[in-house]
């Protein structure tokens, strides 16, 4: 100070100025500070260098609005430059420690005794206390405003969310935390976050469920933690709180009727002193919030009560509808085709009960391979493509209905996209294509537990069907199962009746239903055709009347045996006398039905006409008899040949030769007849056959054969053949053919007047013949045998010219009856 060029303030004045509470400093005319008192240094927070610092000693200067104030524009500078006094200009000084001090400046110029301008003096008045009071007033006003808004918001709130939002607004605005939250006890008495702002998820999760109070705590006190670092907190909370950057916090209880219902929290990122005002504010907000929640709770309860009532009314009405539907379905008789409309009703019921967008009903077709297949019988809401896809569903499919088919259990799929067994299947694709997102399939089980079908309902959105809905669906499923069972039984009965009807309508088998004593009750057309009586006529008849009298005892015995319980039925072959009196053979298959008490109820007869078979059997028997007869007769004939040939022979060798020749002749005549099916042969053929052995090419001329064409009956063929054989044999041995010149003429005719057949065998040109001394078998066969066989006369003459055999017989003996 000693080297200062000029001393403005005397030492005594300096002491005086330093004692003043007001901050005072002095500058020279250029604005350089030449003096400041202790109060000024305190205000500035810094000691300016005398004679160097200009205009103001402040470290930094600001206008009241916070903008920087250059020192040469400060009130002191203005006062010096303009050499005028300024009263109460406002500015803000910032200290090097950052604190700001608002002040009023009262600078005025200084003149010496000569009136020369020599500098200025400035008095700075610290107005911090005034500013603080102003700020406090402003805060109060803002708080009031926020509380008013809070009240207004609560008044307008139409939901709990609105109330929480209003609460959080008010808390943040008035208590000025960085975050806030509201928590409430849930029904289990656990404190849960219901609303929050500025808190991380992790923090909420860590703190959720903890509370300093229990639901029954009375008159709880708010808890303020001004500095987390200094508070005693459980470590687990401290970690979460510090991780969240919380340095101070407050717990404000929300009460209703004096009991804790929840709390709100306010959090700060710096330690904070909670003054009386803040505490009062918090309690006020808590009280308001508490009232609102109480009222909302009451409203909610009333609303819940109303909702519950409405819901139960709706449910009741649904139950009533369902009951009506169920009754309608179960009471409905099943006629042909009716089951389809009942299935539709059940589907309507399912859609109603489940609130679904789609529905379907399938029945099991066990005949479609092991595990069966589901056949779609009714549906709601599906398009053609979907119904085609679902028309048959095998047990191997991945739809819910197929799983129900496999397991016999209900399958609920709340979201088909999230259903594991359906992933990447056609089933899922079709569900989604049809707009199905949720589906349930309920098996339809018979009362014996057999799976009959599946009823499914489907929703457009993910859906979890409530248990109550599923229980009601079970009632419908019960009805549906009963219905399917009834329909199956009806269908089986119908099939059976149709099959029986087909038997009854058989065109070839007669069917008759009779009383146990044999009166006709019902007959079919085939039976009428067979018996000749129409159905009406049969009603008045007893079956024994139709039976041939010879067959009645056997039929009666069989019937009695069956009625007495010996056996359930019998088969008998017997004769019927038809209406026209003709007799037919029938095979009767008779069975007996009994009533529940075991009494005979009906006779059921199947009647087949077996006349054709019987006739064929008879013809066959006759044929066999006839063959027997012929064979035996032929054997007897051969026996006769043998006997006669040997008896008349002069030696055994001669007898054997004669026998063999006759046997061959007989055989040849049989050959001729066999060729003609034993119907006969032409006479010329018989003659040629007999003489063939003696008629070589060279000897053709030795035979002269003439006669009209005559067809002979078999017996005549045989008889004449044998006679010609004997004649020819004799001719060769003793007659015309024994000499080269001999000739044989065979001629025949039918005499028109008498109608007789006449044949002559005449030999000529041979040796003279005479009747043999002993008539042999040959002569006997010709004269006696042939005559017998043809019922005529045969004469054999031996005269000089040769042998002449004359045969005469009625024509019909030769040719057979016309």
């Amino acid at each position, binding site marked *: 100070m000693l080297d200062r060029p000029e001393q403005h303030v005397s030492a005594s004045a300096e002491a005086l100025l330093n004692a003043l509470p007001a901050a005072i400093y002095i500058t020279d005319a250029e604005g350089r500070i030449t003096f400041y008192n202790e109060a000024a240094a305190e205000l500035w927070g810094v000691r300016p260098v005398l004679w160097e610092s200009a205009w103001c000693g402040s470290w930094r200067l600001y206008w009241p609005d916070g903008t920087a104030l250059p020192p040469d524009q400060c009130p002191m500078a203005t006062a010096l430059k303009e050499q005028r006094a300024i009263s109460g200009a406002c500015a803000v000084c910032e200290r090097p420690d950052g604190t700001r001090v608002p002040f009023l400046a009262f600078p005025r110029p200084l003149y010496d005794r000569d009136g020369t301008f020599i500098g200025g003096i400035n008095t700075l008045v610290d107005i911090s206390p005034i500013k603080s009071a102003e700020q406090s007033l402003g805060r109060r006003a803002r708080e009031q405003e926020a509380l008013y808004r809070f009240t207004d918001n609560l008044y307008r709130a139409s939901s709990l969310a609105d109330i929480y939002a209003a609460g959080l607004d008010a808390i943040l605005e008035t208590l000025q935390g960085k975050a806030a939250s509201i928590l409430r006890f849930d029904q289990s008495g656990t404190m849960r976050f219901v609303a929050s702002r500025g808190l991380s998820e992790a923090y909420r999760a860590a703190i959720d469920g903890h509370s300093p109070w229990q639901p029954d705590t009375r008159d709880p006190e708010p808890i303020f933690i001004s500095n987390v670092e200094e508070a005693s907190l459980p470590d687990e909370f401290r970690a979460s709180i510090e991780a969240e950057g919380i340095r101070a916090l407050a717990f404000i209880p929300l009460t209703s009727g004096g009991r804790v219902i929840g709390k709100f929290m306010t959090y700060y990122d710096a330690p904070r002193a909670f003054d009386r005002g803040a505490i009062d504010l918090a309690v006020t907000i808590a009280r308001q919030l508490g009232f609102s929640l109480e009222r909302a709770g009451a409203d909610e309860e009333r609303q819940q009560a109303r909702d519950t009532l409405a819901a139960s009314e709706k449910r009741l009405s649904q139950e009533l509808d369902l009951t009506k539907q169920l009754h309608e379905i179960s009471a409905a008789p099943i006629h042909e085709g009716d089951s389809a409309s009942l299935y539709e009703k059940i589907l309507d019921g399912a859609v109603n009960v489940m609130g679904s967008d789609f529905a379907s009903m399938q029945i099991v077709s066990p005949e479609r391979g092991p595990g069966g297949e589901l056949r779609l019988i009714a549906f709601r809401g599906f398009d053609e493509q979907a119904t085609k896809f679902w028309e048959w569903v095998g047990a191997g499919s991945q739809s819910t209905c197929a799983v129900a088919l496999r397991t016999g259990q209900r399958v609920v799929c709340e979201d088909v996209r999230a259903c594991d067994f359906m992933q990447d299947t056609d089933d899922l694709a079709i569900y989604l294509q049809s707009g199905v997102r949720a589906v349930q399939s309920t098996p339809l089980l018979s009362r014996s537990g057999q799976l009959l079908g599946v009823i499914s309902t489907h929703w457009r959105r993910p859906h979890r069907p409530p248990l109550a809905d599923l229980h009601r669906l079970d009632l419908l499923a019960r009805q549906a199962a009963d219905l399917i069972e009834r329909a199956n039984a009806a269908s089986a009965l119908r099939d059976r009746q149709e099959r029986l009807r087909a038997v009854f309508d058989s065109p070839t088998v007669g069917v008759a239903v009779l009383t146990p004593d044999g009166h006709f009750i019902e007959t079919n057309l085939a039976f009428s055709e067979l018996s000749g009586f129409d159905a009406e006529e049969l009603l008045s008849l007893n079956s024994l009347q139709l039976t041939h009298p010879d067959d009645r005892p056997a039929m009666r015995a069989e019937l009695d045996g069956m009625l007495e319980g010996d056996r359930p039925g019998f088969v008998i072959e017997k004769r019927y006398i038809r209406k026209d009196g003709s007799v037919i053979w029938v095979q009767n298959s008779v069975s007996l039905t009994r009533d529940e008490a075991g009494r005979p109820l009906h006779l059921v007869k199947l009647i087949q006409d077996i006349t054709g078979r019987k006739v064929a059997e008879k013809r066959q028997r006759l044929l066999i008899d006839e063959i027997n007869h012929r064979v*035996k007769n032929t054997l007897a004939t051969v026996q006769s040949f043998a006997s006669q040939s040997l008896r008349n022979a002069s030696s055994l060798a001669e007898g054997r030769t004669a026998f063999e020749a006759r046997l061959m002749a007989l055989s040849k005549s049989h050959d001729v007849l066999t060729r003609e099916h034993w119907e006969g042969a032409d006479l010329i053929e018989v003659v040629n056959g007999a003489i063939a052995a003696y008629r070589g090419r060279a000897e053709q001329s030795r035979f002269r054969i003439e006669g009209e064409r005559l067809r002979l009956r078999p*017996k005549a063929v045989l008889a004449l053949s044998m006679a010609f054989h004997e004649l020819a044999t004799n001719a060769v041995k003793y007659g015309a053919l024994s000499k080269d010149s001999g000739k044989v003429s065979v001629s025949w005719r039918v005499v028109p007047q008498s109608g007789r057949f006449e044949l002559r065998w005449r030999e000529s040109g041979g040796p003279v013949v005479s009747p043999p001394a002993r008539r042999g078998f040959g002569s006997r066969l010709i004269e006696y*045998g*042939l005559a017998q066989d043809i019922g005529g006369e045969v004469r054999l003459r031996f005269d000089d010219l040769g042998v002449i055999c004359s045969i005469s017989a009625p024509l019909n003996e030769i040719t057979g009856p016309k």
Partner: protein
Amino acid sequence: MTSVLTGRRVLLVEDESLILMLVEDALADFGCEIAGVASRFDDAVSKARSLDFELAILDVNLNGQRTFPIAEVIQARGIPFVFATGYGATSIPEALSTAPILQKPFAAPELERALRTALGGDS
């Protein structure tokens, strides 16, 4: 050698001449006389009614006709007879079934035994 057959007059009804001759020869050997032969139904009926004979041999099938009516005529006269047949025994009506039946073809001893049986003597 005489027997119960000696001198018996026999009627033969048979349509097969060779068999007729065979039987005639056999009967001659037995010492029988041929009272008559018939190979036609009407002739046979007529001879059965009127001819004087003590024994008859009847072919069951005479040109396709059964000879039972002829047998009845003979039976009615109380004259014993024998059936000769190529059919089984079952085809004979019960009323005529007491007559012996000769199955064709038959040997002479069989014929003789049948005739003796018909006459009521077993030997």
